[in-house]
């Protein structure tokens, strides 16, 4: 039977506390447990947002957010120890069935393998008194639509019917084995369909509120007659609290409501509530049907009598009241958000500084790493990486010059130069890629397209180099090493590891001596061959956007439409400075031009992919816009 004396938590770790249910639970429990310290571990994936936790909590001494993945064993062990955690409420999971259908292996890696790593850390720590594992009613499989269908009880056999549900059933299997083998004080709580504030807008309720607000048509999968039960999130939070305080260790509890509606009726109710709150005349809800998922579970019906009987819990918030609250919350303007915690390597360099400035402008939290990868022991680098607890790492490192050399000529020479080159241009990158992958951190590497040159298949004016092409230019030691780095990065592609190749990066600050534009204005000779260029004020914001979406793989991050340096200068002359000093133009057809074409990494890069991901100006339009700004600032 349930404990008569309530367990009283002191230091609570909530995982996934920036997600939907997790953040609502944090907001709820902060007041319900007025003396506890709350640590929130969240990797800010999908729709999670650190600002879902209310501001007064975020500002409180009783609350701390640590961004990171539960699979990061060292991070977890450190925080358990440091905060003397006695209670864990584990929400963290990738909860989207569709994503799980697309890549069940990744889903298993994220939800189950990550969870086992977490269990290992908890077991090693040994100080946890209560561990509530949040599972889902989907582990039971669906129920029939019959009127007399019985709800699933805790002793019903599990029959997960989609990969997401299967990953959660796998977690439960490991919960049982850790309970038996190591006596971990775990309780499983299977929650059914919940709605409330902060829910991702791919889910039915927020999606419908959006539609209702715009007076559009509601899309429903299949017939829309799937019965779902609807539990308001604060009711669920109260249930979790009771389980944490009085639940019996090793037990399983269903948490749900017998209140069921099909999505058509939910749509109608939402349209009505939204119209009311907006003070508009009520509108008849309209629906369109879209194809089902490969298997769309029709109905989840669970029996929550155990938690009601043993812990005295039952839902108290009626559907119309819950709906009123969630609609009010959705209609409110969101003021703040925090979806990333970026760590920058090489933030002091020319591009690194621009990247910093951009993050500041976008109000995105970031820190600079201090360790020099390769120079310092790997263990020290790893310790720093873990202690900084990033959700995203970006590497702007790279060795292109040094000493008296302003160019990559610096890297030519003996073993000492080979060492700097391989260390800073290859090892540093691969190290970060490997550890970010292991620790569940998104990694973006600002790489280079300076590894290609025009060849027969990619002639001047012809097809550009694609993301899948491998380096064909080995004319200097920099390109040689960067070429191998690029090939190595390709193998991380399926994970959240982004290899953003840039070429001839420029911006419109003429006083920055690493800026290509500032350099070429001074050149006495200009080679007139088309080249792909990266206009940083366009491309860096795209990079940040793709990081937030956790895009991985190779990416040619250049503006569409190659231009020659001659074209750029002529455009500059036309837009900014008619008195630009003369220079000698070297044509491709000339003997010198032919030789340059053969020996340098001149190339056009295919930008179809980046264009498919994000709107991006062509090189010409981008330059024109930038030059216009220079002209205006000069006139001022």
């Amino acid at each position, binding site marked *: 039977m349930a404990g008569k004396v309530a367990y009283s938590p002191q230091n609570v770790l909530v995982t996934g506390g920036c997600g939907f249910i997790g953040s609502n639970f944090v907001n709820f429990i902060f007041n319900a447990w007025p003396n506890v310290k709350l640590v929130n571990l969240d990797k800010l994936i999908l729709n999670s947002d650190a600002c879902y936790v209310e501001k007064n909590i975020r500002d409180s001494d009783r609350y701390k957010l640590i961004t990171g993945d539960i699979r990061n064993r060292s991070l977890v062990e450190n925080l358990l120890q440091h905060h003397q955690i006695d209670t864990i409420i584990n929400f963290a999971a990738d909860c989207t069935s569709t994503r799980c259908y697309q890549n*069940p292996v990744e889903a298993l890696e994220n939800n189950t393998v990550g969870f086992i790593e977490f269990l290992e850390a908890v077991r090693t720590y040994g100080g946890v008194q209560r561990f509530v594992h949040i599972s889902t009613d989907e582990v039971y499989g669906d129920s029939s639509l019959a009127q007399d269908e019985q709800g699933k009880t805790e002793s019903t056999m599990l029959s*997960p019917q989609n990969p997401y549900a299967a990953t959660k059933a796998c977690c439960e*299997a*490991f919960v049982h084995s850790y309970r*038996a083998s190591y006596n971990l004080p775990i309780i499983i709580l299977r929650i059914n369909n919940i709605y409330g504030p902060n829910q991702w807008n791919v889910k039915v309720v927020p999606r419908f509120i959006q539609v209702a607000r715009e007076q559009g048509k509601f899309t429903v999968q299949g017939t829309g007659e799937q019965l779902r039960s609807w539990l308001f999130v604060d009711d669920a939070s109260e249930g979790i609290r009771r389980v944490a305080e009085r639940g019996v260790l090793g037990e399983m509890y269903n948490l749900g409501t017998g209140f069921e509606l099909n999505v058509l009726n939910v749509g109608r109710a939402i349209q009505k509530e939204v119209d009311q709150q907006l003070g508009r005349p009520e509108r008849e809800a309209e629906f369109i049907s879209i194809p089902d998922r490969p298997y769309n579970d029709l109905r989840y019906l669970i029996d929550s009598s155990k938690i009601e009987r043993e812990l005295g819990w039952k839902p108290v918030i009626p559907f119309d009241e819950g709906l009123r609250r969630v609609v009010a919350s959705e209609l409110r303007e969101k003021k703040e958000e925090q979806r990333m915690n970026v760590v920058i390597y090489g933030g002091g360099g020319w591009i690194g500084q621009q990247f910093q400035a951009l993050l500041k402008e976008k109000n995105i939290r970031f820190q600079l790493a201090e360790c020099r990868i390769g120079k310092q022991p790997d263990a020290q680098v790893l310790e720093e990486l873990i202690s900084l607890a990033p959700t995203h790492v970006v590497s702007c490192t790279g060795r292109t010059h040094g000493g008296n050399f302003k160019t990559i000529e610096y890297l030519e020479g003996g073993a000492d130069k080979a060492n700097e080159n391989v260390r800073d241009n290859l090892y540093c990158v691969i*190290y970060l890629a490997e550890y970010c992958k292991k620790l569940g951190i998104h990694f973006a590497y600002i790489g280079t397209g300076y590894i290609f040159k025009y060849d027969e298949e990619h002639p001047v004016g012809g097809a550009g180099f694609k993301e899948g092409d491998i380096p064909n230019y080995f004319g200097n030691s920099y*390109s040689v090493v960067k070429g191998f780095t690029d*090939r190595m990065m390709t193998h991380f592609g399926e994970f959240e590891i982004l290899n953003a190749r840039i070429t001839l990066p420029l911006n419109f600050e003429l006083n920055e001596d690493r800026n290509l534009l500032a350099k070429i204005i001074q050149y006495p000779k200009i080679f007139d061959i088309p080249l792909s260029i990266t206009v940083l004020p366009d491309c860096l914001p795209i990079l940040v956007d793709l990081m937030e979406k956790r895009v991985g793989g190779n990416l040619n991050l250049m503006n569409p439409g190659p231009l020659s340096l001659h074209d750029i200068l002529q455009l500059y002359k036309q837009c900014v400075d008619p008195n630009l000093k003369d220079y000698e133009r070297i044509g491709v057809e000339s003997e010198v031009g032919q030789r340059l074409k053969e020996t340098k990494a001149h190339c056009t890069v295919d930008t179809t992919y980046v264009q498919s991901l994000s709107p991006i100006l062509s090189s010409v339009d981008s330059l024109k816009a930038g030059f216009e700004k220079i002209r205006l600032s000069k006139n001022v």
Partner: protein
Amino acid sequence: MTMRTPKSVLVTGGCGFIGSNFINQIYIRWPDAKIVNLDKLLPGSNACNVDCDLRNNAERYRLVVGDCCNRELTMKLLQDHQIDTIVHFAANSSVDDCYRDSVGAARNNVLAMTHFLEVCRLYDRLELFMHISTDEVYGDSGKDSQPKMEQSLLTPTNPYAATKASCEAMLNAYRVSYKLPTITARMNNVYGPRQCNAKVVPRFVLQAFEGQPFTVMSDGEQLRSWMYVDDCCEGLAKLAEQGRIGEIYNMGAKFELSILDLAKQIHEETKRQSPDTVADFSTVPMCDRPYIDRRYHIDTQKMEKEIGWTCTTSFEQGLQRTVAWYMRPPMDRQTEKILIYGGKGWIGSQFAKLCDDRAVAYVLGATRPGDDRDEVVEQEIVRVAPSHVVSFLGRTHGPGCNTIEYLEGGPDKLKENAQDNLYAPWLLATLCRKLGVHMTYVGTGCLFSYDKDHPIGGRGYTEDDEPNYFGNSYSVVKGYTDRVMHHFDDSVLNARIRLPVNFELDTRNLVAKVISYKQIFDMPNSITILPDILPILLDLMKKRYTGTLNMTNPGAVKHSETLAAYNRLVDAEKTWQVIGDDDPRAESMRSARANCALDTTKLQQLYPDLRSARDGVLEAIKHIAAQRAAQ
């Protein structure tokens, strides 16, 4: 009831215990069926567990070495052989392994199977996917509790059982979502011929036979049901023929026996068959697991009613056959198939010869990693389907230059260096990790130089030390290779060797070189006596050892010691000069090469009999002298 007659069967894990017995049985039972056996040859499996008749019948049987996670390979197998039936045994069934590394166990058993299910879904022409599970998924049964039915709750008590319950959860999702035609068999403990020696029945038989005490876990009172493997395989074959798609079946014997009683019975039976060798019965405790289930008690009525199957071999009969089998002389073993890169080089060819001598199956890699496109190399690994890859690739010299000075120079040299010394081994490690193949990188210990923490005669560099010598481009690049190999600690053996010596008059043999020197720079160095180390390397591969390991013989040797020994044993007239510290050349000679001693504690713990570097050199000189004399 419809009867299925499988025409083309893919058995995974068919070199393991039950898998191989199953193959041997269906070969006769289904005379028209083609059988493909996919097995990664984990320790305990043996390709020769499959009967010789089958192995010689190329028309009906084929072994493919590989992991279920290798999607390219499994898809190719399904398509090429038009597979209609899969029987999925493959899993790491060692409970101890799963306790040691739960995450690794989940990857090995659950993730790999999910990769495989994805392929099966895309292939879409299966008539049956039969999944072999275990009664352990139910967890513990009390003394008086009801037997577990197929719809009972699963509450596994150890990580192995949790991985198997997880496999079932995934399988269920594929059954429902993609209409995969599944049948699951949850089986009792199985015993019989071909089980690997670590498992309890063969362990007891061998202990009895050797007159050793029986090693018993916990109090030995834990109950298990014992199903003879031939019964089990017959049941599985019947299930494949008649079982209802989508169903789960418990399979087992009604016969329960505690571990202690099992030990006693085995003792008696072994004594009966071999009265001279068996000592009196005694037991010793062995290390406990965190949790031992008291009993697995399952209800097998469904199988009896629907399939008409029940165990027919009495425990006495089964035990008698099993003991007899383990007392026979050991059978042939094929436990690996090695893909060798760089097998034509100096060290690689010595390794290949060793494999020849030991009848270890191997293939020489034909692609050139780094030089060829990565897909081409991957396709080769998929096509060859090895259990192990070993790379002897590396660039130490080239046209016109016989030393690592070859690698000094411009971008072209850096390209060769980075490609052959870094990218190629990294690529192989990456591909092998993805494809579930064990990989060995034969790297170098020439990454360090003596410093104040590691002085001459003081402590050596350990496996965890990071390179501190950057005096030539070879060592620079190899240093980063060594560091990236540390990222593969659970899938790659990073074998650091240095200054290799063999027993031949060979231009690349360090000892042969030294005895020709007239002037030497005399620093003590760790060296690798190849005739000692290569067999160890092969043994470590068989054990699927991973992580970094210093593979030099213990102790460091100076050239002057080698030459002195040469004077003593071969040619007293040989003279040489030592380049002293005051010599103007000394500084550049010191800095151009990595001079260091490696700490070999780890290797010596694994191989305590390994001789010292000094003794190895003496042996080499003796051999060289003999060869000189013969010339």
